[in-house]
């Protein structure tokens, strides 16, 4: 598969459409599965990992699922290409930096993927733009059923699907909703929200999952418990908090608009101005400014740029993406220049449309 061609297309989850997409960027569900006849990857050597990868790869072609999944052999990729897949959320950092045979199979829209030989033998993932929990579950459940026709997953009557880490055992499900919460961040109410979510055992993570910072005011809300609840109960639990979070964020946005519209408008217009004219810009500043502009569009203060363009820029301006676009390795200073040029081009391009 030609990864370079991906730089020309947009991942489905960046479309910026779907229910509640002013706040909900994307919905993701993943399932952890292991092949019953092999040890987990902590105790498996290269040969076993190779067999796992081969078995998964072989069954992909015959899967009765609507989308074709193309396999990418991760060890054969250079570091930039691996990082590129991480930035697109197709693989985890753990898979990129792992050892031995491993890979990822994904659909052309990048909305379905299967990581092979990460912490578990298989990590199935379905992503959607906006709030789309049921669609994600339907698709991943069908994919899981289809895989189960070909592969035997480790399963225990009492403990359910067995995983390398007991924190995932049972359903192996992780349901995450990615939210853009700039107003709650600015009004500093975000910590309160986190506390209340933690109390009901929901986790809050940054854009790239575990350990990542909340870049660009993006937060992922996900379940902690994977055992003792059915998949739909887990999904409903995550779903149940979303309306309140949307309400908090929208109310904070309205309050900002009512109390200090001029100041807010000025702040957002300046952010847009910097992005449209900067000659060199860091990744951190980019995320920060794009977040302000995204808020401005959603509040109707700016109307000359599409949400999908902004969503895309959050990903396209990351280090590996810039280097893929330029087809060469770039040091930090050159990346900052390339990033500024890309943003100027995309934002003023929109103006001309």
């Amino acid at each position, binding site marked *: 598969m030609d990864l370079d061609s991906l730089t020309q297309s947009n991942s489905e989850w960046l479309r910026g459409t779907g229910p509640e997409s002013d706040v909900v960027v994307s919905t993701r569900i993943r399932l952890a599965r*292991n092949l*019953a006849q*092999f*040890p*987990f990857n*902590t*105790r498996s050597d290269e040969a076993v990992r190779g067999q796992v990868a081969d078995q998964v790869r072989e069954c992909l072609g015959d899967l009765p699922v609507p989308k074709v999944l193309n396999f990418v052999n991760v060890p054969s990729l250079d570091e930039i290409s691996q990082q590129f897949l991480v930035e697109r959320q197709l693989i985890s*950092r*753990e898979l990129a*930096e792992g050892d031995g045979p491993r890979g990822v199979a994904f659909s052309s829209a990048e909305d379905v993927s299967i990581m092979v030989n990460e*912490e578990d033998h298989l990590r199935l993932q379905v992503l959607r733009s906006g709030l789309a929990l049921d669609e994600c579950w339907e698709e991943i*459940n069908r994919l*899981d*059923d289809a895989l*189960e*026709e070909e592969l*035997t*997953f*480790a*399963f*225990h*009557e*009492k*403990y*359910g*699907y*067995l995983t*390398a*880490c*007991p*924190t995932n*055992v*049972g*359903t192996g*499900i992780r349901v995450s909703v990615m939210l853009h919460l700039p107003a709650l961040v600015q009004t500093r109410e975000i910590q309160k929200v*986190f*506390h209340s979510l*933690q*109390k009901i*055992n929901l*986790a809050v993570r940054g854009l790239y999952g*575990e*350990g*990542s*910072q909340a870049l660009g005011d993006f937060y992922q809300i996900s379940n*902690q*418990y*994977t*055992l*003792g*609840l*059915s*998949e739909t*109960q*887990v999904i409903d639990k995550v779903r149940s908090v979303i309306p309140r979070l949307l309400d908090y964020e929208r109310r904070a946005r309205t309050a900002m608009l009512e109390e200090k519209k001029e100041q807010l408008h000025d702040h957002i217009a300046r952010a847009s101005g910097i992005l449209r004219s900067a000659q060199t810009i860091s990744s951190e500043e980019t995320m920060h400014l794009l977040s302000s502009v995204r808020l401005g569009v959603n509040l109707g203060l700016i109307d000359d740029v599409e949400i999908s363009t902004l969503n895309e820029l959050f990903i396209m301006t990351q280090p590996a993406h810039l280097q893929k676009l330029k087809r060469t390795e770039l040091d930090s200073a050159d990346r900052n220049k390339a990033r500024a040029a890309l943003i100027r081009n995309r934002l003023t391009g929109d103006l001309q449309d």
Partner: protein
Amino acid sequence: MKKCRRCSKSATLHITELRQGEATEIHLCETCAKDYLSQAEEVSTPDLDVQFDQLEEGEHSEVSGIDDRTCPNCGITFREFRTQGRLGCPHDYVAFESDLIPLIENIHGETQHCGKLPKRAPDSSRRQHQLIRLRSELKVAIEEENYESAARLRDEIQQVESKLQGNDSSEE
């Protein structure tokens, strides 16, 4: 060089936590360390280390014995599991069952799976699981005072129970 416990960057900060006189070393990269320290006062999410600490408290005298136990299938010791937080093979859930149950209960608050079953599971275990799931849904319905669903669930439970007893093998 040790790797950061939260992400996979190199650990540059080595924090020694003192909890009830017990010292634990935590290795983190700079970014995660900042995060960790600023969150130290917050309610923590289920964390294997903490779970292990709790496990040890009541079982000090037995700990070394448990640690040396080995899975006959993959050869991992319970100590290795405790160190890396990852099991070695599916059989570990049986081999270390008595020690894993309290850990699993600490993490999930439950020990019985009630989600989906592999398609190839026999009909009888399918029904058993259906019962477990329905009973858990019934519990939730009653807690939420949703009596209409509770009544429907109770009917469904009775139906499945009678099928199980009659060993009716037809598909539901």
